[in-house]
């Protein structure tokens, strides 16, 4: 599977088809909005009993990307857990799984609106992280430059010969990059949404995830 290579603020990056961001120079993999423990939280709040397998699914894909890229650093860019209680309630097997993924890697948990505090798990906990010419934070800040964020779960839709193809997408312009949600069953916000149109400059690209990531002008 190919990645899509592009430049952000003088930094060469690769958008992977899985929805993860690869920064070759730093050997760094960044994923956003894992929402681990989502079914646990639904069960806790609504009483609906959903099988808690979405966490396994998300971790399986993450493990795959990690071994394929041999990443040395990992940033989980906020909303890593569906809420802090979900982080605490994560089953032992999944907790150990995460620990296993963290072996020999620098691991950063950036806080998100769903998980605004430290979690009882290895790795560093940060509100945001500056690295090289880039800043990693959960929610995009207007006016920021060289910023990588998540939060909005963007997706984009392209019409090709009468067929609408809609997929989670990376959005980037010269100043910022917004990552798609990596977690299983996290839903998406169409790139047409006002908030995304306001944030992103004219000339923004949307990179659709999938077998081969493909860039198009961001549909507005």
């Amino acid at each position, binding site marked *: *599977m*190919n*990645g899509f*290579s*592009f*430049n952000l603020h003088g930094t060469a990056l*690769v958008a*992977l*088809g*899985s929805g993860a961001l*690869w920064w*070759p120079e730093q050997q760094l993999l960044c994923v956003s909005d894992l929402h681990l423990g989502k*079914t646990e939280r639904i069960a806790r709040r*609504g*009483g*609906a*009993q*959903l*099988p*808690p*397998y*979405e966490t*396994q*699914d998300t971790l*399986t894909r993450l493990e*795959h*990307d990690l071994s*394929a*890229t041999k990443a040395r650093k990992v940033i989980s860019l906020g909303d890593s857990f569906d809420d802090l209680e979900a982080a605490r309630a994560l*089953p032992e*097997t999944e907790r150990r799984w995460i620990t296993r993924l963290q072996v020999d890697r620098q691991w950063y948990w950036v806080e998100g609106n769903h998980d605004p505090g430290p979690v009882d798990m290895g790795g560093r906990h940060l509100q945001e992280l500056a690295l090289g010419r880039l800043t990693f934070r959960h929610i995009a800040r207007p006016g920021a430059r060289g910023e990588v964020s998540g939060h909005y779960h963007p997706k984009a839709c*392209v*019409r*090709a*010969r009468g*067929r609408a*193809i809609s997929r989670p997408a990376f959005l980037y312009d010269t100043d910022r990059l917004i990552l798609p949600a990596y977690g*299983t*069953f996290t839903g998406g916000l169409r790139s047409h949404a006002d908030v995304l149109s306001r944030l992103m400059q004219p*000339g923004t*690209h949307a990179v*659709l995830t*999938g*077998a*081969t990531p*493909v*860039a*198009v*002008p961001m549909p507005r």
Partner: protein
Amino acid sequence: MTPLPPRFAEWFATKGWHIHPHQQHMLDRSDDPALLLIAPTGGGKTLSGFLPSLVDLADGRHEGMHTLYISPLKALAADIKRNLTTPVADMHLPITIEERTGDTSQSRRKRQRADPPHILLTTPESLALLVSYEDAPRMFKGLKRVVIDEIHALAESKRGDQMMLGLARLQTFCPDLKRVGLSATVEDPAAIAHFMARHPDPCEILMADPGPAPDIQMLTTDEAPPWSGGGAAYAIPAVLDQVRQHNTTLIFHNTRAQAEIFFHNLWLANDDSLPIGIHHGSLDRQQRERVEAAMVRGDLRAIVCTGTLDLGIDWGDVDLIIQIGAPKNVKRLVQRIGRANHRYNAPSKALLVPANRFEVVECVAALDAVLAGELDGEPRGPGPRDVLCQHILITACAGPFDADALYVEFMSVGAYADLSRAEFDACLDFCATGGYALRAYDRWQRLIKREDGHWQLRDPRAAQRIRMNIGTIQDTDTLKVRMRRNRGGKPLGEIEEGFAASLTPGDTFLIGGQIVRYEGLREMTVEVSRDAAKKPKIATFMGTKFATSTQLSDRVQRMFTQDSWPGLPAHTAEWLHLQREVSQLPQPGRLLIESFPHDGREQTVIYGFAGRNGQQTLGLLLTKRMEEMGLHPMGFVATDYATLIWGLDAVRDPGPLFDLEALQNGLETWLAGNAVMKRTFRASATIAGLIERNTPSARKSGRQATFSSDILYDTLQRYDPDHLMLQITREEAMRGLVDFGRVEQLIARIEGRIDHRRLTRVTPLSAPLFLEAGRIPVKGEAEERLLAEEAARLMEASGLAQLAPPPANKPRWRVGY
């Protein structure tokens, strides 16, 4: 011969009736362990079933429940109660009769458990619930007879399997229980006898006089039927004409959506304002009851309906049946025709209305089959194990059980007579642990083994949840529809959740024959207002899309071998001649494939005659093979007789596509991720108790259930591919929605005899396929290619291509998926 007691003989005499021979026979054989009566409607069938009970109860000495009556429909139970009350009241018999269904009030149910009536009328689901109570042995104490009505309908579904498992339970309580089955005409009575009798008890089959042959014809119209579609709007004037000429007409449709559209069009053309009603399963109960009542009073001249009216409810003076659309299945057609004219010994009258040109052929084939007395049906195979899982849990609700005894009990059910101990143990293990991949989650660990070796619920509170989820009916998930008012307007019926999700405020659709506008969703209820629009966006009730039976498909194929078709209307015969001229007609034992370019794409048509579900599965598997072969398929559409596939590249050699082994592998792997398979899994997982539709706090919406079942399915596929639920899903895939069994039959039948026609343009026989709804896109390489092309075009057009970094001269990043 057992003489009729004087009180009964007098009653028959005052009514001016004679006892029917089969009623006498039922009385004579009332000590048989099992008896199956096959009789046409109107032959006093119900009374035959109850006569031995009434006679036995007449002296008033029996205490407790005597006879249990089970029917597939709640409405039928109510109807029977009415019909039984008459003789009981007339003869002053000391017999109590009560019904117990989902509609019975809580207080009455409680009382029934404490003080059961002599005759209890119920449904398979209510029976399952009753045997789940600890006091079931007390409630059914003294039970002597069980009467199963419309058993042919139950024998075709999992509801019947559940019922027979429940009966096995009762038989354990009351070893002398006698079973009586009442059935309409079926192709294989022995199979039903095997299904209903305690295995290996014998079961005698009584055939009542079938009555005169029906008078059945195809409706001829001046206007030719259209090329495709199922609406039959062209026939509206002719149908109205027929309604005018008869007292009461039943107009049957194959799907609810078609019934709605037809009813709407009928009203637009109904200049004489004939009283016509509509009745189908998606309508609100009150609405349905109102139509039923009007029908019984004889106020209606016609009713547009679907399968809900198929079963034996007594509908007064029906003298004409009209079937819109090809009947798909000869047996169902015959049973529907049986609805008309309830006078015994008068021929029923029926008209078939083909909805499109191909259905003309199918209708003629069906007529031939009816005249030849040839019914169709597929043997059902062994009883499904998801029902077994549910029944194990139901048994556990009633109290601790011994696994060996339960296994013996299960084997006394005909459908499960061949159940191996290993298969049984797998079900028991699933109920106890959830299976290997789920062993870590205690919500699925529901049984524990006690020190005395008996099994019981691990948490007694689970009984409530299990009872809430009893049943095997898998309704598509529906939402209620109401008129928008201040405080909850009139309920209209239900629509599918998926359809509701596709609506935006202002959209219009048909329900209950009126056009309504979608206003919004409030607390899981769709709110609508009246709308005067002429053309609605139509409710896509999934309904049931029946597949044409194997036997009927064979007949159609045999018709294609004729030199000419004097039996067909000229327009249809000409169409077939034209097909023979430009290409050829499909031949029995061979497979015709046509390929030609059209609409900027390469088209391939496979005339497999495997029924709608089978052709659809064939489409899924062939597109997968084409994907592997680099032919870039983009989508397909299936009908009962053919599959049309379109893509970017032409098929040159279709032979390799039909390698059975490769197709089977396809079923295992690619279909594994397919939505149809997931739906099959979801149905079985819900029945087996893996997924709970109902919880004490709230009913789970369909979307939530889909969400959870899809995750479970994927997980089990990955971590535990031999999990019991996946085994069951694969078993189910051979029939029903996936129907891979018929694809296998097809491939075995043709043995590589393929007629491939490479043509330059659309052929007459394939033309209707291009108008067919329900096109399914294939998301494969073709989509990647389209996306890449479109992206390049967009980037170029926007000028962004110049801004984007050139394809780097360093090696591009590759991730080894």
